[in-house]
């Protein structure tokens, strides 16, 4: 059980969060198949530090950007997804 320092709630166990995976930008609706299916399926699957998205579903219900080392599970900076104060 990891500790994630939620910017709204403080230190919380990771079972309160839902892991959303690496952050993938949504291409426009007029994208070609190659681009769209890259967005749907292809992933970098980094072994090391990556910024990924977590959803504090059992806490503040905010989507967060979380820096995490995928080998050690060490967690870096956690920030709210843009637009939310």
């Amino acid at each position, binding site marked *: 059980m990891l500790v994630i320092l939620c910017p709204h709630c403080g230190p919380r166990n990771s079972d309160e969060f*839902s892991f959303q995976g690496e952050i993938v930008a949504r291409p426009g609706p007029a994208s070609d198949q190659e681009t769209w299916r890259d967005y749907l399926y292809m*992933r970098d*699957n980094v072994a090391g530090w990556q910024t990924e998205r977590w959803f504090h579903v059992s806490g503040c219900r905010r989507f967060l950007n979380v820096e995490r080392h995928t080998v050690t599970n060490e967690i870096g900076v956690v920030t709210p997804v843009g637009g939310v104060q």
Partner: protein
Amino acid sequence: MNQKARFSAWGLFKRGLTRSHWPRVWDHHELRDSYDVVIVGGGVHGLATAYYLARNHGITNVAVVEKSYIGSGGSGRNTAIVRSNYLTPEGSKFYDRSVELYEHLAADLNFNVMFEQRGHMTLAHSDSSLRTMRWRAEVNKLQGIDSSVIGPEEIKSLAPFLDTSDHPRYPILGALWHPPGGIVRHDAVVWGYARAAAALGVHIHQGTELTGIEVESGRVAVAQTSRGDIATSTIVNCTAGWASLVAKMAGVRLPIITRPLQAAVTEPVRQFLHPVVVSGSLHTYVSQTARGELVFGASVDPFASYSTRGSLEFATGLATHVLELMPAISKMRMLRQWAGLCDMTPDFGPIIGPTPVDGFYVDVGWGTYGFKAGPVAGESVAEMVANGRPGSLIEPFGLERFHAGTLTAEKGAAAVGH
């Protein structure tokens, strides 16, 4: 294979009398500067591929490079369940061939892999899961696979420790029963393939890590390893847990997310559970080994990671679920827990086939099903490498399906796992 080294009861007796050692099962070799085929990953998939390349296709100038020791990855960390009762026709056909190979593997490899066909039972706790069980059974029957839906009474007689009483939250409504399914000694499969491949001339390089792949004008040219470069025209990525990273060396991106899958074993007790029991809703599967230990598994971890350290939540969740099924075993003790890495694909189907880089093949993305597919994957990948194109058994599992939008339908059964 050297006849003097042939395993048999007579051989055991003779060596017991003379107290002499058996010869080495495989030898150390210097790394050659070129091989016809370089297989990355010394697990069941890599070693089976090497074996079938040599045995079925006469391709013996083959190196298996393994960064640690053979069987150190998923092959040595899985719960060794074998079955073929998959949901899709392509899936069940493929795994049925695997069961068939497993049934004859001991004789084929002259290495007893201890395949115990104890039967495989997938419990249904809800109408919808019962419907999925029926779906699987019907598809299986059409493939000639022994698979049917059974009721609580038969479940109780096959596994008396299961609580089939009126259960409020997880009632046992029925089960998918698959008599040919069972468990196998996973290490023995690895060693059996390694020994047989080595006897046919394959070089197994343990402690040899792939560090890079040189691609020249769209073709594989060199496999760089921690022990030196290998000139080769063919590289087969048979890794699990590192599939994305190895593919990246060749410039190939994969639809894979790596997630740990945890397992645990209890202290041994006298035999009381014969079949393999699975509950999809409770994310649990359990079998008792010949040694008397219960071996447990669950679903993949809730977040992607390359960690194999294991978590307390797995242990507590697993125990909760196992005791829902078998409340009588609360005093048994968990002895050891561990984790392996699973490369999950979007449709829960594997990725076997060529890639945009000529000579770079993948046999990856096995999710939680890799071990049971080892023999048939090895056989099919060897055939593909020898012929330059995938055979019909693996055609549905190519990488291009993710761009063509023709995903495999196994995802429908994903919830029932293992």
